[in-house]
């Protein structure tokens, strides 16, 4: 005889499941009927919205600390023009993937802050997902420095194989990366002036070590290596040769590139790096800098805002350009460009409204408000603070925009960049040498060139 066991809890669960699915279905259908995915309304909706007095555009962004500010601006915009802007925040690391997924299902929002470089955007241009803006917003673009506009401009012969030439992003803000130093710690070590040459920087490192101060930290464990090497790529190779070498048109070995890697070896040999440098990320280096644990950091202009947030009392720092080595033939050019690019979907049904909103966002008044909240420099030149109001550090970063490079060339495969990054991580702890790393980079480069054919 089987004992009748009624698993009462199981039946309850089943009931709950049925109810929940019913509820889910019902609410799901209601929501999808009344709301639209992304920003592409169905044809019947379109004629309806044309009849309505207020249009609605969808704006996706990842700027959590500026979300309230953007919502405020959207409301202000609505009161001025009657156009409603739905500001959606998607924070964290996944924004890039969300854009990719939406592009694949044709559900990109009308407007978005783009996450990715010129190469990534090129892929969206290829699939005709994003709109060319240079032709439609000529006047607006005059407000920004040329170097900044070029960041997402694609001309004939561009290295990304983009055929639909033009400019595809409007800058919300700009930034660049330089060295930042702690004035008090420098004074303690007897250094009176920020280094102007690479040799002077190494001397400063020695003096700091003698005074028992850790000289330098930055995010060697992550993407920072590229931007830090770039000024020296330009200094040793010059723009033309650099681009040719990276494209494989000139050999990497023997080009002088090993001098770029030697920069990191020099720092290692002079014991410039803080402990744990090989896997350190930029936020950690910033923490150390704010706490006075290191005297120098390589960071971006946004660091000013970061330092302010971490410790508002920390003010005694200033900025200097990556110092040129004596044996370098060319001038230094620094990494920089657009902090937050605004990109418009090609499939948007509200083109005029969107462009109007973009114009609004980069107008002087909004840019000033934004610059106060954001950690970056405003893109609109009219909105730049007057010289008197800026701190010395901010001024130096601002001036740095003039030295930002336009293009540092691009390898046929990101694997070469990876080889360099991984190699430098070992150089800074003395476990590899510039020659070894150069050879690894060349291997990756040759492999990539072969596959391209």
């Amino acid at each position, binding site marked *: 005889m089987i004992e009748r066991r009624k698993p009462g809890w199981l039946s309850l669960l089943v009931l709950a499941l049925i109810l929940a699915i019913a509820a889910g279905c019902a609410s799901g259908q209601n929501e999808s009927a009344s709301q639209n995915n992304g920003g592409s309304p169905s044809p019947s909706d379109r004629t309806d919205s044309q009849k309505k007095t207020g249009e609605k555009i969808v704006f996706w962004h990842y700027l959590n600390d500026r979300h309230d500010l953007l919502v405020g601006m959207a409301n202000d915009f609505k009161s001025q023009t009657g156009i409603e802007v739905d500001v959606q925040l998607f924070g964290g690391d996944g924004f890039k993937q969300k854009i*990719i997924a939406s592009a694949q299902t044709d559900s990109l929002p009308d407007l978005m802050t783009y996450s990715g470089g010129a190469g*990534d955007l090129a892929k969206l241009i290829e699939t005709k997902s994003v709109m060319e803006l240079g032709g439609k917003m000529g006047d607006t673009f005059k407000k920004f420095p040329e170097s900044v506009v070029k960041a997402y401009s694609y001309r004939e012969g561009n290295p990304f194989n983009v055929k639909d030439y033009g400019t595809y992003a409007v800058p919300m803000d700009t930034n660049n990366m330089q060295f930042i130093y702690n004035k008090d710690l420098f004074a303690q070590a007897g250094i009176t002036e920020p280094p102007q040459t690479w040799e002077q920087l190494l001397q400063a490192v020695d003096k700091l070590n003698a005074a028992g101060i850790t000289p330098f930290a930055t995010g060697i*464990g992550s993407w920072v290596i590229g931007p830090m090497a770039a000024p020296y790529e330009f200094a040793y190779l010059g723009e033309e040769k650099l681009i040719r070498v990276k494209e494989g048109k000139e050999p990497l070995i023997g080009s002088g590139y090993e001098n770029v890697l030697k920069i990191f070896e020099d720092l290692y040999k002079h014991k410039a790096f803080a402990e744990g440098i090989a896997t350190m990320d930029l936020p950690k280096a910033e923490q150390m800098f704010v706490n006075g644990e290191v005297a120098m950091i390589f960071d971006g202009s946004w660091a000013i805002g970061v330092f302010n947030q971490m410790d508002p009392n920390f003010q005694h720092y200033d900025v200097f350009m990556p110092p040129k080595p004596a044996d370098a033939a060319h001038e230094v050019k620094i990494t920089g460009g657009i902090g937050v690019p605004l990109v418009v979907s090609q499939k948007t049904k509200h083109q005029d409204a969107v462009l109007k909103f973009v114009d609004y966002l980069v107008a002087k008044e909004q840019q000033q408000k934004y610059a106060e909240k954001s950690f970056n420099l405003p893109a609109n030149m009219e909105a730049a603070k007057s010289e008197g109001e800026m701190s010395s550090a901010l001024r130096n970063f601002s001036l740095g925009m003039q030295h930002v490079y336009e293009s540092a060339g691009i390898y046929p495969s990101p694997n070469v960049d990876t080889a360099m990054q991984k190699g430098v*991580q070992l150089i800074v702890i003395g476990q590899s040498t510039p020659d070894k790393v150069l050879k690894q980079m060349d291997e990756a480069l040759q492999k990539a060139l072969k596959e391209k054919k």
Partner: protein
Amino acid sequence: MNPISLPNAPIVKRKSRKLACRRYFNLLYVLPALALFGVFSLFPIVKTVQYSFTDANGINPNFHYVGLANYRSALTDSQWWQAVGNGGVFALLSLIFMNSIALLLSVAVNANIRGNQIYRVVFYIPPILSGIVVGYVWKWIYDPKGILNSFLQGIGLGGYTHAWIGSTDTALYAVAVSSMWQGVGGSFILFLAGLQGIPKEWYEAAEIDGANRLQKLRYITVPSLRSVYTMVNILTILGALGIFNQVYAMTMGGPGYTTEVPALRIYREAFTNSDFGMSSAFSIVFGVMLFILSLIQLKLSRNKE
């Protein structure tokens, strides 16, 4: 495992047809699973296999077929094999240390020791935390000026302080420790569930026969756990080889390739290099390796019986 069959009965033609009918009827049990699986899981897999033969970048629906080029590249990639080796180290350490600790803990807790309810909850806290949080916490522990080094200095072992995740000789093991720390809880509850399935009477009978703790462990507990143990081992190996979140949060594979793991490489190829073709090829190669490994494990455990 032998499928359960109807008890021996006089074989009549009617019965054997019923048998065949039943075999198809029983498919109904897996129907819901197959349906869901077919709709949602099959497509990604098919897509991955497809991508592995192309140069797709994950964004453009147009791509070209490149035959076996991706696979050739993947199989000759020394950094990939280093990553696989690192995964193997994680797996080995986990099998040896993590599962042993989990087994001991589960046996101890199962014996109705005082406070075992609390222990059960506490031991499951590490798996509840997301990999990112675990990464943060251990980064803080391993910080050169952090708590581990301070502790070593405090007890006079200052010479052993290290940049734990910043040095090539310790990074891999440091990450392994954090991953095992989190994994114990998962294996623990699986073992515990398995132990619950062992009838109490067997222990009682053994006790009457005069068996001590160790003998009970050896002759009752361990044999009865065989199937569960194999399952936990397979899951452990899969989990260790597939580690991602903690490495992403702590070292990003560095310094150099010291802590590079397969999942990280697959992720990087897909989202940094925009090379879905290579990424998919790596995935398939990896999947085949894991599959063979699991089959071997199942075969080994079956032979023991």
